[in-house]
């Protein structure tokens, strides 16, 4: 029996894999066999790990020859396994952390609101279940589709993808409209079914708390609201270095009412968690890189940048020259840097493109209504939205802003709002936001310039200080803001990060031990091959002499030496060039030999496999027969 069962498994797997290879109808069988192979391989891995520990620990305990190497192996194995399994130093996955939100536990069955729309859950054949993201919340009752909770965007898209019919998609759209938090709390309140958590964005006020508590008498609901309110009142404070000149207490409150900046005490404080948008707005308090004009006048002299007539470019160049000498390649590097700066025309073009009207997409309910009215050719695309263009006063506001001494994105949006009569159009806001995501700050631009100039020649201490001082201040400020963001955040899923995330212990082992060690092992080959070639590669007989000649040709052909040595040969003798001979050896002699070996291996494999499948060869079971 001990041998019969493995023999039967071998026979069955062999027949399945053979059938799967030759018959397309049995492909799935082969895949199932492969999956089982993986499962068994993972068990074998566990056994292998245990065996490795057993063998090497025994060697260490009995102090056999080479026991120190065994100790290193055991330590390396255990440490790598441990840091990988416990995810030491791994930050939580950013997309799961819901930055800016506080969580409070609220079991799904205690969630007090259910929403229903008329409709039927689609009938699915086979084993296709409802999407996992909504399975616990969605049910059918009395001709209604009932949903407990507030439908999240990912749940909506999962439901839309669940069944392609217009009727179902219309039900989902109606449900998505109905199953939402009450109006004043839309975008602030959410319910996540998987961790069973009620979430609130930002810091909850006492009035908001009272309004939310009044929504339901449920004790669990009220206790969750209290927990969210308390989480939103938690104060976090950091001491900041010299703050950017633009930031004032009023400006900080404009970013978020929960933010409090004290210039005298150099403290930045926040109530509740900080969102990514708030962090980004705080970090953006440094002026943007200045633009260049579109058409640069011609150069003034060979060792001076052509952009010099522009006042800011001139001032920058002059400031650098006052602090030390600059050579001609550095002048060229300065010009290249200047040429890459953004222009007002690029911004205007980006705005123009953002204003182009796009076709609207019809909802499923709209298309269903068309169908019910008898339409036969239903198009999912609706009429195109009208184009929006930049008005002359808005363009003038942009040009005036670009000429101001310090450029901030918020200032531009304020000027555009004034030029637009109070409210900046959405397309303008989007275009400005997207455009300046790509534009560095002036401090970053000067740091880039510093690197470019250092590549082209030396810089004095004063020049480096001039180019890097702003960046240093910006870096210190952003570090302080990052620290406030980190302290204000409460980790929700501490083990959600990837085991090999940058900066983690596993990453360090990989980057600074595994990589250099394996590369070193491979590189050592060069030394041993050289030594072996000197001592053992002898033309002792004809076969060895042929091998030696072939090796010379291939060694030369794999470098530029081949071209240098025989490149002078005329075309009619071109086949004698070393690189051509190398190709000939590889494609003719090598290929013929390799094919012969491969055919032999294939025949041998087929014969051995058949013997194993049919039970004629049982050596793998430990039998000699």
């Amino acid at each position, binding site marked *: 029996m001990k041998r019969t069962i493995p023999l039967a498994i071998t026979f069955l797997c062999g027949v399945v894999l053979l059938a799967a290879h030759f018959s397309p109808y049995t492909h799935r069988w082969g895949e199932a066999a*492969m999956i089982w192979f993986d499962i068994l*391989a993972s068990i074998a891995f566990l056994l292998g790990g245990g065996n490795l520990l057993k063998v090497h620990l025994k060697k260490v305990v009995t102090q056999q020859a080479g026991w120190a190497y065994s100790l290193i192996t055991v330590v390396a194995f255990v440490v790598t396994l441990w840091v990988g399994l416990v995810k030491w130093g791994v930050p939580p996955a950013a997309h799961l952390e819901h930055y800016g939100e506080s969580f409070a536990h609220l079991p799904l069955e205690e969630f007090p609101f259910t929403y229903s729309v008329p409709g039927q859950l689609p009938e699915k054949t086979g084993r296709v279940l409802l999407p996992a993201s909504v399975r616990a919340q969605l049910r059918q009752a009395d001709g209604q589709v009932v949903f407990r909770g507030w439908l999240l965007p990912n749940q909506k898209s999962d439901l839309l993808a669940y069944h392609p019919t217009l009727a179902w998609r219309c039900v989902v759209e109606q449900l998505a409209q109905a199953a939402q938090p009450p109006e004043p709390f839309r975008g602030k309140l959410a319910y996540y079914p998987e961790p069973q958590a009620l979430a609130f964005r930002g810091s909850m006020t006492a009035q908001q708390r009272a309004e939310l508590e009044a929504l339901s008498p449920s004790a669990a609901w009220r206790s969750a609201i209290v927990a969210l309110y308390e989480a939103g009142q938690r104060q976090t404070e950091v001491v900041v270095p010299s703050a950017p000149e633009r930031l004032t207490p009023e400006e900080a409150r404009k970013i978020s009412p929960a933010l409090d900046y004290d210039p005298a005490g150099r403290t930045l404080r926040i109530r509740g968690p900080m969102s990514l948008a708030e962090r980004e707005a705080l970090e953006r308090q440094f002026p943007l890189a200045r633009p260049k004009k579109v058409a640069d006048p011609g150069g003034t002299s060979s060792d001076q940048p052509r952009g010099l007539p522009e006042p800011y470019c001139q001032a920058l160049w002059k400031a650098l020259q006052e602090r030390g000498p600059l050579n001609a390649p550095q002048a060229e590097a300065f010009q290249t840097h200047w040429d890459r700066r953004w222009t007002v025309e690029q911004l205007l073009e980006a705005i123009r493109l953002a204003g182009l009207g796009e076709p609207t997409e019809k909802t499923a309910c709209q298309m269903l209504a068309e169908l019910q009215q008898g339409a036969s050719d239903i198009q999912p695309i609706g009429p195109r939205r009208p184009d929006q263009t930049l008005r002359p006063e808005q363009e003038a506001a942009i040009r005036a802003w670009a000429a101001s001494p310090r450029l901030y994105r918020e200032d531009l949006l304020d000027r555009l709002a004034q030029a637009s009569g109070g409210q900046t159009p959405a397309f303008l806001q989007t275009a400005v936001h997207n455009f300046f995501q790509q534009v560095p700050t002036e401090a970053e631009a000067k740091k880039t310039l510093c690197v470019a100039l250092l590549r082209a020649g030396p810089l004095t201490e004063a020049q480096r200080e001039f180019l890097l001082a702003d960046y240093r201040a910006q870096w210190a400020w952003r570090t302080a803001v990052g620290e406030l963001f980190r302290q204000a955040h409460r980790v929700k899923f501490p083990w959600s990060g990837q085991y090999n995330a940058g900066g983690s212990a596993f990453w360090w082992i990989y980057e600074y031990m595994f990589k250099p060690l394996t590369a070193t092992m491979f*590189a050592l080959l060069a*030394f041993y091959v*050289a030594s072996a070639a*000197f001592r053992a590669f*002898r033309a002792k007989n004809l076969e060895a002499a042929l091998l*030696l000649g072939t090796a010379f040709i291939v060694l030369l052909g794999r470098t530029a030496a081949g*071209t240098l040595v025989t490149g002078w040969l005329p075309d009619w003798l071109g086949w004698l060039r070393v690189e051509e001979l190398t*190709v000939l050896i590889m494609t003719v002699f090598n290929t013929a030999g390799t094919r012969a070996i491969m055919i032999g291996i294939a025949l041998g494999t087929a014969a051995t496999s058949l013997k194993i499948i049919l039970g004629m060869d049982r050596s793998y079971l430990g039998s000699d027969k």
Partner: protein
Amino acid sequence: MFQKLQQLDRRWVFLMMLLAVAWPMLADWRVPEKPTLLVRQTFDAIDRLPEGSRILLSWDWDPSAEGELGPMANAFVRHCCQKKHKMVFIALWPVGQQLIDDTIEKLIQAEYPHLVYGRDYVNLGFKPGNEGVIKVMLTDLRQLYTTDARGTNIEKIPVMRGLNTVRDFDLVVSVSAGYPGIKEWVQYASAAYPNQVRLITGTTGVSAPLLYPYIPDQLQGMLGAIKGAAEYEQLFLEKYPPPPGEDRGKYQEALRRMGPQLAAHLLMIGLILLGNILYFAGRQRRPS
């Protein structure tokens, strides 16, 4: 003298090899490269695809082969970025995932910041199973890769739209250092679907001779060792010269390594010749 050479301490050989490799590196010695037909075919396999083609890049290697395969992996990716192809990365080797992360962080994000993760490229990461992974991907890759390496549902990744099997890709590129690697791709993918799976590879010097029998039917192109990578870089630089003022060094990783390779090969030939001279001279001296 003869005796001394015959009993030459191997540490002198090691020292000579060290100098042969170190000197060209320190002196930044460059040698010209003339691309061969096979490398041109490999280059054309990517270059002739229309813009936006979908390419599967399988990173089947580990850091021990970085010296040979790193430059060609970078050259392939740079070429794909330049041609605006959509890239899907996978790894058949466990540490291949870290190598993909390196490629994305140090090359794509640094040199092509306008390319967006998920829209222009995606990292599906490592899956165990060796050739089993290839087999499953041939019929339904979504069965195996339900998420990308970051945990995002594959259905929500725009670049994966319409990609259900390996046959849906316009080209498969395997950078391969051994098993599982290009041989398995040939045996299970291009041999099984000869007209539907197009395959090119970059491989180590020791693997290259074993792959020649597959060219050009099952394997449409191959870069063999650092020499192949250097020729590829040469072609890339000829067709897509970097903008003036930009550092060309990053495009010449393999070309820079050809100087040390030439010096090392010449030393090897010299050592073999010297060894044989000593051998034959020793035979003549020996009393019959």
